[in-house]
């Protein structure tokens, strides 16, 4: 339902008219989902928090010009995935699954890989700054057509 909504809008839309309608529709859907699911924090609330952190990280990666802020948004995305893993590990432990601790093991490895990737990525940033004197991604455009 969501995908048909967005694809139909993309084909038939013209920006000024369709945009406020889509924002209202999306806000209404989000509000309905929040009200329907109640307010006691169970697994779905943790997953929604992780999803919102993920979306904020994606917005940061797509929007900012400073490459260090882009890296920090990537760390936020990885952290959101970790929260998802740990929430499911607790849920599986509560429902009696014997492999419940696998979620926490996954989260440890995500943290390890994030640390390694941050180290190498920041080394690249330093090398880039030494050669190009800039840290803004839209000024690094030698490969553009």
């Amino acid at each position, binding site marked *: 339902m*969501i995908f048909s909504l*967005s694809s139909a809008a993309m084909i038939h839309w013209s920006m000024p008219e369709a*945009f406020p309608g*889509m*924002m209202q529709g*999306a806000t209404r*859907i989000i509000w309905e*989902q929040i009200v329907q699911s109640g307010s006691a*924090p*169970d697994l779905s609330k943790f997953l*929604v*928090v992780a*999803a*919102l*952190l*993920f979306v*904020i990280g*994606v*917005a*940061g990666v*797509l*929007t900012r*010009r*400073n490459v*260090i*802020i882009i*890296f*920090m*948004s990537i760390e*936020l995305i990885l*952290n959101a995935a*970790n*929260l998802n893993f*740990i929430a499911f*590990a*607790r849920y599986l*432990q*509560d*429902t*009696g699954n014997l492999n419940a*601790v696998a979620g*926490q*093991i996954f989260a*440890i*490895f995500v*943290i*390890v890989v*994030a*640390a*390694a990737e*941050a*180290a*190498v990525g*920041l*080394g690249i*940033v*330093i*090398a880039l*700054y030494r050669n190009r004197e800039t*840290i803004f991604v839209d000024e690094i455009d030698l490969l553009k057509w």
Partner: protein
Amino acid sequence: MTLTGWEAVFFWVFSSAALVAALLMVMARNAVHAALFLISSLVAVAALFVMLGAEFIAGVQVLVYVGGVMVLFLFVVMLVNVGAEERGGERLFNSSAQVAATILFSLLLTTGLIYSINQGYRGLIERDRDRLEAVGQRRAQIVETLTTSATGTMKISRDTEQVGASLYRFAALPFEIASVLLLVAIVGAVLLARTRKQESVTGDLDSDAETSG
């Protein structure tokens, strides 16, 4: 696994703190402010981990992620950040068409994610209905078997013991591969961040770079 009472209050407090800090990080003008907002968000998520019973992962997150990775970010900000954003010389965000497209995409993604999470959760509750009813008893049984702390006020959880046992028995191979990955990352980071003089000493300087100076 519904949280009740004070745990529910702390859930809302920590999750809204994490979300607000993440939003402010994305919009911060100063890179150091953005790093500090991210640290706040990571610590709030570590508190959420403690509420989910993963105390070891919460400790690892604060020690490694906040205490290692974010300190590394702050060092690089010190070396590299030109400060033009704070003085108002440079734009913070990409062109406004890109920002509008990003906001639209984020709204669609949020809608899709929240919708599918709630749909999937309903199905999951249906499937696990009988197991979920016994959750309270299962938790009480587990808490009975835990050892009491020295002051007698709380129980010592077995999370670290279980994580360690699983990590070294069933995940031993990924553990060793992760240590090799960290070694490669260390060597790669040192190699990438060499200065020109360091590169010429070992003869690694490119001939074009030498002539163009």
